[in-house]
């Protein structure tokens, strides 16, 4: 168990360096932040600012400075907000996490029962419908789903507020949008792993012992089918955070995603770096937890 943890921890470190290298590199390629900060200002003023911000130093030096600082949690001050970038990101993190966790919860709540039903009543009418819905759900881009849900529930039927983040009713549409993005894949995994497990000998044995079908499904089959589901849920968490970026913009949710989108457009390096770094850390941590959980659920891994 200890070696497993250690190995995973090293992997976390490697990911950290990789993430910072990529964010740094992409931003280096994307143009001059000073020109974007003061587009219609005289060149002399811009040159002064460029020098003051250290953009004239060699790229390698800038990178070393960046890595050194980010290890200490210092991403510098946002060019735009003139405030520490990390604070700006942390201030908005609870909103994004709330949205993501709600969406994840929603997806799990819908996809597990539906997946089980589909597996147990395979090829039934409802199973076919579910398959079609899964197909549709996976093909719809998040922003489109979001705008369609908004048009239906907020503009046409006036059941929910259009946008904002002022109370629980404001959270429904963004969470459903993001959940719709995640649920189909989860549902498919539940269905296929349930199908696999239901055909195994020990299930047949349980049934032949006269155990009720309900208990066979929930106690015997589901626990074993849960392994891949847990893995995928963990992996999907990162994709969900990515989806949150778009959802937050569409629904005017004051989260990290929106902050990063704006920072990218303004080439506000420190905010992009702090934001991406922190989100990456969350994904890595979740995956780490999933790995551990996996080991707990599946004794075979612990032994290995």
């Amino acid at each position, binding site marked *: 168990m200890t070696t497993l943890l250690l190995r995973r921890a090293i992997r976390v470190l490697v990911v950290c360096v990789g993430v910072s290298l990529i964010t740094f590199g992409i931003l280096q390629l*994307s*143009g*001059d932040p000073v*020109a*974007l900060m*003061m*587009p*219609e*200002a*005289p*060149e*002399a*003023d811009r040159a002064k600012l460029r020098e003051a911000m250290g953009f004239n130093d060699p790229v390698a030096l800038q990178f070393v400075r960046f890595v050194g600082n980010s290890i200490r949690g210092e991403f510098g001050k*946002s060019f*735009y*907000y*003139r*405030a520490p970038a990390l604070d700006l990101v942390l*201030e*908005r993190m609870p909103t994004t996490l709330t949205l993501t966790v709600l969406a994840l919860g929603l997806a799990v709540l819908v996809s597990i029962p539906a997946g089980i039903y589909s597996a147990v009543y395979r090829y039934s009418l409802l199973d076919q419908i579910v398959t079609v819905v899964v197909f549709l759900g996976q093909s719809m881009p998040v922003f489109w789903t979001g*705008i369609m849900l*908004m*048009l239906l529930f*907020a*503009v046409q039927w*006036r*059941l*929910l*507020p*259009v*946008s*904002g*983040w*002022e*109370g629980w*009713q404001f959270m429904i549409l963004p969470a459903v949008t993001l959940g719709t993005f995640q649920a189909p894949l989860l549902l498919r995994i539940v269905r296929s792993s349930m199908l696999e497990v239901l055909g195994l000998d020990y299930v047949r044995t349980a049934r032949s012992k006269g155990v009720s079908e309900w208990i066979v499904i929930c106690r015997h089959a589901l626990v074993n089918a849960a392994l891949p589901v847990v893995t995928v849920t963990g992996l999907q968490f990162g994709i969900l955070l990515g989806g949150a970026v778009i959802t937050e*913009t*569409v*629904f*005017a949710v*004051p989260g990290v995603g*929106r*902050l990063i*989108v*704006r920072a990218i*457009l303004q*080439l506000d390096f420190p905010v992009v770096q702090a934001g991406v770094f922190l989100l990456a850390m969350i994904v890595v941590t979740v995956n780490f937890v999933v790995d551990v959980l996996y080991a707990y659920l599946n004794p075979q891994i612990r032994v290995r």
Partner: protein
Amino acid sequence: MKRWRLFLVLFLATLLIPLGAAAQKDTLVVALVSHAPTIDPHFHFERVGILVNINMFDSLLHKNKRLEYEPSLATSWKALNDTTWEFKLRKGVKFHNGEVMTAEDVKFSFDRVLDPAKKSPQYGNIRAIKEVRIVDPETIHLITDRPFPLLLERMVFFPIVPKKHVEKVGDQVFGISQPVGTGPWKFVEWKRDQHIKLEAFDGHWRGRPAFKHLIIRAVPEVSTQVAELKTGGVDLIRNVSSDLVPDLKAHPQTYVSTAPILRTHYIEFDMRHPPFDKKLVRQAANYAVDKQTIIQKLMAGLGRQVATTVHPAAFGHDPSVTPYPYDPKKARELLAQAGYPNGVDVTIHSAFVEFRPVFEAICQMLTEVGIRATPKPWDPGPAYNKFLQGEGKATHGYYGSWGYYSVFDADAILHPLYHTEPGGWIGKWYTRIEGLDGMIDEARSTVDQAKRKRIYAQIQRYIKEEAPNIFLFHQFDTLGVSKKVEYEARGDEWLWLFDAKPKR
């Protein structure tokens, strides 16, 4: 099944209750794409911030709907000589915290922007001011280091802040949680990326605004803003793109209000390289583009053709200079005369994302007369590097626009676009017109408005002939407004919400 349906109805009804309560008649909700980084009016220079600031802070001067100067915190003003301006201050004006505004506060406001250590992004706007002198408690003199004809323009957005209060709470707190001004609304709450809540200030010298509550929401997506407007979640949105205009015009709960604005479109030629080093080719390009069709078909009619880059509303505009007509035949002739009877290949660049279709249409029209133009679209970031730095590499030209930084004066576009002095804007890379620099400088060096007007008239005739650009059109501001609210778009793109009234 029935009981299930009843439950659903009840559930949905509970959702509706909080929504209904939110819509009150004394509240005006405005959506902007974002909030400025601070509410301190001196430490940003962004449209979204200015629009909030003007409703909380007063400046020395104000502009009415027709864009004429009006007294605000200054009741009268005059130039004593080329470098000294006198302003008489309004008596008994109260700040939101009850303190009375004095000449000390005015001086303090200037000094905090002029202090280089504070790095205000508005420093450049007023750096010509050398000294702010308090003559008596109701009179101040602004002394400039050279004749500064744009001074009055700059005083329209130069908010006055309370000295004692700012010194007590500090710049940071002032800008985030305790801004205090003399304007119609006072600060209540700012939730970043959500809303700024303001409340009418009872002691405002103009009287009370019609709406007791003013909420400025940050909604980044235009389609979301439109959905909010249609459902009554917000009352006012800006920059409605031309494809959405018909939709909002037709909707029973909304209308569209438009006004011509300064933002002027052009194609800037690189005059250092062939073929646009030749005057005849530049003129041919001006004849080749059918501006009226572009305005009607691609911009929902929301544009107006200009004769040169000097906007009709800017000081110095000469209406006797007429636009180039659309004349493709003439364009082909001129091109042949210039030595290109078989046409010529050029590349035109642009980072003007919202006007991509217009960009492509212009290139197509140029191609039809023989100036075979390849459109090259860019992202704004890399484009700035390419076009504005190094050597200005937008060969052979680029499609862009200039917003005059909201200064209604010919100088505000002539200098950045055409002056070739080092440290200038794009003129230094692209424009090569004999003697133009001198004319721009001359108009700049006096506050004698009649003389300036004469020089600008001369310049406009000259640049029309020399054609350093394809002169295109200026844009319109388009507001989407709820039918519950009466408000008209302004030519300076301000949201001066003191003029907004509830409609019965």
